[in-house]
C-alpha cells in the first residue's frame, strides 16, 4: 500500500502549498508514490485516520486551528511543521504584540465606510486566539521544514526521506528562515 499523505493549511498564506506545487513535473512522479488523502488542493471530506505523514502549513491562530491541530495529531503517525509560520509563527504572529480587538477594529470598524462592526458571535466566525503560535506549542511535532516558503527542492528532499521512513535530515543549506 502506498503511504497515506496529507497536507493541511492553518493560519498562513498558502505559499508553502504553492511551493509544494512548484515540484512541477515531480508531482507526476509523486502521484505514483503516494495517496494524497487530505489536502486543500483535493476533494476530501474530513481529516482521515491513519495518515502516515502530514505536512502542516501555518500558525495556530484561531480556535478552529487549535481544535484541528489535536485531530491532526491523533490521526497521524508523523507530523511535520511545514514552513516558517508553523515553525515559528512568522508573519501570522506579527499581530501578537497587539490586542486582538485593536487589530479587528482597524479592519472592520475604522476602515469600513458602512455598517462598521467586528465579525463575531456568529457560528461561521472562528474566534481569534490572543496570539498566533507555532504548531509545536499545541501538539508534538516530529520534524520541521524551514523557509518562507521552503523551496521545492527542500520539500522534495524532505518528502523523499519521509517516504523512505526516515526522519528528514536536512542539510545546512536548507536550514534558513525567510
Amino acid at each position: 500500500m502506498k503511504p497515506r499523505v496529507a497536507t493541511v493549511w492553518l493560519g498562513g498564506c498558502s505559499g508553502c502549498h504553492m511551493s509544494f506545487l512548484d515540484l512541477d513535473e515531480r508531482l507526476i512522479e509523486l502521484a505514483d508514490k503516494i495517496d494524497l488523502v487530505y489536502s486543500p488542493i483535493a476533494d476530501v471530506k474530513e481529516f482521515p485516520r491513519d495518515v502516515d505523514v502530514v505536512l502542516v502549513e501555518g500558525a495556530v491562530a484561531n480556535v478552529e486551528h487549535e481544535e484541528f491541530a489535536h485531530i491532526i495529531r491523533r490521526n497521524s503517525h508523523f507530523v511535520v511543521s511545514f514552513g516558517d509560520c508553523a515553525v515559528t509563527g512568522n508573519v501570522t504572529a506579527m499581530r501578537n504584540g497587539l490586542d486582538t480587538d485593536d487589530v479587528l477594529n482597524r479592519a472592520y470598524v475604522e476602515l469600513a465606510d458602512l455598517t462598521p462592526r467586528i465579525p463575531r458571535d456568529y457560528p461561521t466566525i472562528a474566534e481569534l486566539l490572543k496570539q498566533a503560535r507555532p504548531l509545536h506549542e499545541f501538539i508534538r511535532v516530529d520534524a520541521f521544514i524551514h523557509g518562507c516558503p521552503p523551496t521545492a527542492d527542500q520539500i522534495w528532499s524532505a518528502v523523499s526521506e519521509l517516504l523512505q521512513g526516515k526522519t528528514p535530515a536536512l542539510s545546512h543549506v536548507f536550514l534558513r528562515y525567510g
Partner: protein
Amino acid sequence: MPTSTITISPVTRIEGHAKITIQVDGKGVVQDARFHVNEFRGFEKFCEGRLMWEMGGITSRICGICPTSHLITSAKAGDAILSVAIPETAQKLRRLITLAQWLQSHALSFFHLSSPDFILGFDSDPAKRNIFGLIAQDKEFAKRGIRLRKYGQEIIEVLGTRKIHTPWAVAGGVREPFDSAKRDYLLNWIPEARETALMALETMKKIHVKFQHDIPNYGNFRSLFVGLVADDGALEYYDGRLRVMDGAGNIIADKIDTAQYHEYFGEATEDWSYLKFPYYKPLGYQKGMYRVGPLARVNICDYIDTPLAEAERKLFKAIAGEAETVNNSFYYHYARLIEILFSVEKIEALLNDPVILGHNIRAKAMINQTHGIGASEAPRGTLFHEYWVNDDGLLQKVDLVIATAQNNLAMNRTVRQLAMQYMDGAKVTEGILNRIEAGIRCFDPCLSCSTHAIGKMPMHVQVVDEEHRLLCDVRR
C-alpha cells in the same frame, strides 16, 4: 412559516475554510444563501510602525498564490510616496513579472483546481477529483498545465531569484537588472506556452457545449464590472485608469484615477464574514455590487492589443450578443484562458523589447509624500494598497482593498442563485453540493488574501428544522 438553516461547511470546519449557509422556509423554498469567510490575520494593523521599504516583503506574505501582485502594488504605493516616475526599464520589467504572476495563477486555477471538474466530471468520484486524479486520467493534459504554471513561476524566479515571496520590486523600481542570457532562456518557452494556451481554449469551447444546460445557473445576473483600462481602451494589467461598466455594456464611469478610488468605492462589514463587502458608492450598498477579475477585464476593455487574444475576445463577446456584457460568472473560466493567451503573447513582446536590458532600473529618492496609493490588476482583479507614513517613512496607517473581496457581493448572489435553482426542500444531494461549490470556484477566490480555502471545499450539509432536529445530513 417556520424557517430552517442549512449549513454547508467544510467537514473540517474546525480548519476554518469558507462556509455557505442556506435558509429555507417551511415549504423548503430557499429564502437566502450566504458565503462566509472565517479567517483573519490583521495586516492592516500590524504593519503600522514598519518601514515603507519593508512593505513589499511583508504584504507579499498576504498570499502565496499572488505574492508578486502584492509586491508590485506595494512598490507602486512606494513610488507615490517617493514622488518618482520610475525608469522605463523598471516599468517594463515590472510589467513582465505582473504577467508572469497572471500566467502562473490562471494556470493553477484552470488546470490544477478547476479542470478536474471539467475533465473527470462534476459527478465523478470526489476522492479522485483533484490534480493527482487528473494526472491518472490524462497525464499529457495535466503535464501541460503543470508546465504552463511552471513557466510563470520560472519568469518570477529568473527576475526575482525566487518563485514565491521575491523581494525584487521596490519603491522607485526594481533591485536587479535583466540580461540577454536570461531573456533567451525565457523566450525558448514561448512556443510551448502558446500551444498550451490555445489547447486550453479549445478545451474550454468543448466544455461550453458539454455543460450548456448547467451554465445558465452559474451566477448569471447583471452587475457592474470594474477594472483598469489603458488610456486607448486596451486591456490593462499594470497601469491605466478605472472603468465602471454596467451589465448592459454601458460605461457609467471612466478614466478614474486610481488615487481617487475611495471616492467611488466603499467597504461594508457584516458580522457573519471576515471578508468585507466593497461596493460602488454612487449606487450604494447592494445595488453597487460589482465584479472584478478576468470576466470584468475582458468585458470592459475596448480591445486586446495582441492578435491571438483579440481574436478570442471577439468570439467570447459574441456569447452575450451586442446588447449585453458577458454576465454569466461561469465565463470567468473562459476569460481567464483568454488572459493566459494574452499574457503569453505580451511576455514574448516584452522579452523582445531591448529596453528591458537597460541598467537604469531604480529611481532613488527620500520620503516626499506622507500618503501613497498603488494599484494594479492582480489575477483576480484590481488590487489597492494605500499607505500613510510619517516623515521617516514609518507606516502610520494601511488600507488594503483586495481583489477577491470586491467579488464578495457577487459570490453571495451566485450562491443564492444556485441554491434557489438546485435545492429541492430539505433534500440535499452530492450533485447540489458540487454545483454550489463550483459556482464559487468560477471566481477563483483567492481566500488566502483573507482566509485560506483553495481547491475544493469539503462539504457537510445539515438541514435542521426550527427545533434543531436533523432533517438531512450529507457529507462528501
